[in-house]
């Protein structure tokens, strides 16, 4: 029973007499007096109807757990879902560090009182820069799609052009975000989106179509490596060369988890690089684990187009000591409101710390081992699934951790198959059949280091059973 006089554990001044003591000091007769600025007719008339208070920690915990127990997880089930959020192993140290209250609750202090956090941020950018072979990495924005949106707008400002070329086989989730950033065509400052066809044999970008659509009005060419449907773009350097010849920027999206075994984008001519931060030590969090990075070469023309926080190392007044601060702070919206580059605000900076810890744990050999393990198991999984009658793998020899599984010959829809798999504790890949990609009844399966060879055999066996 909660009595009206019990203090709330989260409010020191709810202890008996505290409000009255402060009111007495300020010479106010009652609480209503401190709200004297608000005209009486502005106060709400509708009663506040909220569920009953759960004032004890015990009751609150019970309520939360009772609800959360209704979820089924990728830990208890065998999940092959990816497409923007992927199940990777999260080292325990990462969770310990980002759970530290100093990191979890802080907001913004001075460059000295925030020194440890700023160093962790700088170490995120530095280690990611080492994976990308690029010198500038901004703190992450809200998501990969948002990072691509900002990168396109950077390119448009830098080139003064208003058209961008994107792969037709793009993730509709990311593409929708990108369309938002590029604005509807009715807006004067809209950026036109033109889609580049895919090569049917490989799923890679159709270079002939790219060549036909590249012109003096194109601000940027965007492609992913590996791409939405898992394919590795082997012609990356050629695409960048073609874009440069047309005066356009090359924007690449990469999965950082692949960079222990795949060529760094800085080495094949990418001008601006984006990617997801969630694979770097962040739990899927029901999609709440996403963030997106933006990186580039260290040239003022690029640096001056960033929208957010660029953490730079700097000397302190004490000789030999290094600290950190923000480079070019006046170009963002905090410095220049509507004249800044796009906008910035709270973002996903805790994930930068997760990423810093994660990358320092893996090191060069960890990334190499991990990349090798993922691509090996994913290819193995594809081979096993291909042996199931009625199942076909699209582009079996050109993918990294995700691949397209086609079920047309089973006579069943992906939805039906996934329902049957789910009843046996398997979450099948993302259903692509409604995405207009021309792939029929296909699903995008994702295999990572969390899937053992035995898991993969179990999945293939179960699939063949449910298709009978």
């Amino acid at each position: 029973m909660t009595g009206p006089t019990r203090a709330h554990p989260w409010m020191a001044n709810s202890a008996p007499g505290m409000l009255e003591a402060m009111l007495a000091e300020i010479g106010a007769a009652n609480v209503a007096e401190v709200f004297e600025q608000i005209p009486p007719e502005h106060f709400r008339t509708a009663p506040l109807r909220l569920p009953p208070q759960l004032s004890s920690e015990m009751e609150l915990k019970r309520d939360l757990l009772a609800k959360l127990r209704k979820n089924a997880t990728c830990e208890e089930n065998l999940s092959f879902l990816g497409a923007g959020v992927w199940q990777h192993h999260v080292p325990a140290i990462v969770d310990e560090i980002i759970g530290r209250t100093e990191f979890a609750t802080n907001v913004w202090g001075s460059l000295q009182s925030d020194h440890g956090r700023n160093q962790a941020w700088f170490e995120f950018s530095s280690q990611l820069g080492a994976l990308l072979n690029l010198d500038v990495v901004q703190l992450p924005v809200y998501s990969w799609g948002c990072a691509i949106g900002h990168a396109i707008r950077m390119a448009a400002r830098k080139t003064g052009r208003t058209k961008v070329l994107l792969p037709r086989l793009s993730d509709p989730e990311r593409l929708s975000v990108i369309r938002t950033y590029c604005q509807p065509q009715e807006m004067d400052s809209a950026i036109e989106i033109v889609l580049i066809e895919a090569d049917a044999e490989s799923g890679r970008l159709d270079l002939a179509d790219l060549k036909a659509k590249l012109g003096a009005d194109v601000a940027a060419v965007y492609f992913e490596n590996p791409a939405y449907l898992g394919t590795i773009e082997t012609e990356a350097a050629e695409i960048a060369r073609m874009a440069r010849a047309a005066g356009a920027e090359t924007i690449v999206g990469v999965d950082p988890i692949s960079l222990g075994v795949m060529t760094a984008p800085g080495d094949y001519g990418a001008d601006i690089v984006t990617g997801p931060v969630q694979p770097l030590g962040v739990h899927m969090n029901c999609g709440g684990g996403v963030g997106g990075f933006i990186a580039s070469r260290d040239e003022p023309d690029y640096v001056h187009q960033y929208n957010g926080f660029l953490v730079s190392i700097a000397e302190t007044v004490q000789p030999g000591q290094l600290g950190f601060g923000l480079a070019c702070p006046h170009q963002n919206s905090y410095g220049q409101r509507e004249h800044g580059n796009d906008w910035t605000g709270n973002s996903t900076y805790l994930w930068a710390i997760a990423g810093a810890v994660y990358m320092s744990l893996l090191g060069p050999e960890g990334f190499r081992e991990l990349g090798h393990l993922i691509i090996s198991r994913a290819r193995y999984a594809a081979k096993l699934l291909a042996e199931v009658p009625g199942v076909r793998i699209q582009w079996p020899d050109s993918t990294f951790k995700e691949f397209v599984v086609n079920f047309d010959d089973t006579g069943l829809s992906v939805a039906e198959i996934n329902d049957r798999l789910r009843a046996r504790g398997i979450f099948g890949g993302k259903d692509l059949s409604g995405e207009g990609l021309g792939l029929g009844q296909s699903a995008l399966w994702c295999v990572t280091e969390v899937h053992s060879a035995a898991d993969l055999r179990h999945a293939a066996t179960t699939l063949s059973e449910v298709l009978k």
Partner: protein
Amino acid sequence: MTRLPTFHAAKWDEPLVMDMGRPGGRGQLFPAPEPEVAEAVGQNPVPAAMQRKDRPVLPEITEFEAQRHYLHLSQMTLGMMGVSLFGTCTMKYNSKTSEFATWRPQIAEVHPYQHPDTLQGVLEIMHDFDGILQSLSGMDQFVFQPGGGADAAYTMTAVARAYWADRGQLGQRTEMVTSIQAHPCNPATAAAAGFTVINLPLEENGYPSLEALKAALSERTALIMLNNPDDMGIYNPEIREWVQAAKDVGALCFYDHANFNGVMGKLSARELGFDACMFMLHKTFGAPKAGGGPAVGAFGCTAELAPYMPAPVVVKQGERYVLDEDRPKSCGKIREFWGNVPQVVKAYAWARAMGAEGIQLASDISVVANNYMDHRLSQLPGIARSNPDVTKRRMEMTRWSLAPLHEETGIGTVEIANRMADYGIDPWWMSHEPWIVPQPFTPEAGELWSKEDIDLWIDVLAQIMQEARENPELVRTAPHNQPIAQVKGDAFEDPSKWAMTWRAYLRKRDQAAAQGAA
């Protein structure tokens, strides 16, 4: 006077992680592919053209070294472990009960594309929290996709675009009207969305005049974006007339409820006439800020605007919760998936733990506490309250100015903020740009901090102001008890010196050394 703390921050003289370790050191091992896997796929399935040849220059350290290093860095972050009256951000206790709940696999290891049947718990929480926000605001539907307050403002501009496009007026409705005092995210997101921004100047009463607003409004106005009260702690009593004036020209009205803490449970955005509003869950609703996200700007609007919201929307059908993606008039996605779900769960937990009575009490406490702080601060010579013509009691925060002390001693708000950390007090919030109030600082007590915390904070400020008069050099060169000394600012605008990565730093250092040697 309270006894002031003798404080010194942890000072580990910690190296950069890139400078640690030894060749071959390992912090995390992965198994080799199983023999049957290797046999099936070969030794290197990566296409030859894309095989990485170089070795990424990453640290090679042990698991313990990584743990110790980042624990050291956390210890060198003051992070609200002192007293943080950081105005405009409403520093709250972030419940570990809810934090730990979201670390469970039922949130942490859940994928947003799972079948809704496997997500009924989290969908129920989001649906119930939507209902809580509906009651607090009077709006009809909320979404949680925006990744922060600024992203919620951006959502509003995208919703406005879809709303006007649907009426065939997007080519005509090209302007957004706001106050020069509004948070920068409002004009910045509107501009990024393609609108022309009209900033209204302030009058002596602290807010723009109704006449200025009416002069700015026209059939070109797509929307207005307002916060109220503002960061001065001033409430615009003409807000209803403002909304009416905007509606008279057909414009949409967005309430940036960033400063909700002092009015929660007392005002309803809908009753004031607004079409849409946003709440910052990492601020007002007790979810952690995490040094700048993951955050949530919960965006809510009327049923009339709801078709234009970003999808998906969580809805209840019978006893089942589903994600409604089939919204043909939607503005499109603002961000992938449905939002920072763990933060939504924490905000739900906060609202449940507070209840209606706790929320009402918290707004009472936050406004009374700020007035208590105002009362004590007004007795300190050398500082002045913003907008001296506004004599009524301020809301949950007040902007102050150190201009008198600055004139007297040369010590300003930046120096004092630096010095506060020497006492274990988190440096204060000054002001967003532009600095209309000279040498600004903006404390906000909220409902978390005790009267004793507030007294300590003011006593430390008084002590530093005394230092500024007696020994200004001590303050000018502060901090002295922090992990590092003042950072030199010359690198931040200089392409030959700025370095956003260690590799850039090493390259520029070597270049500078070579030039020095030449």
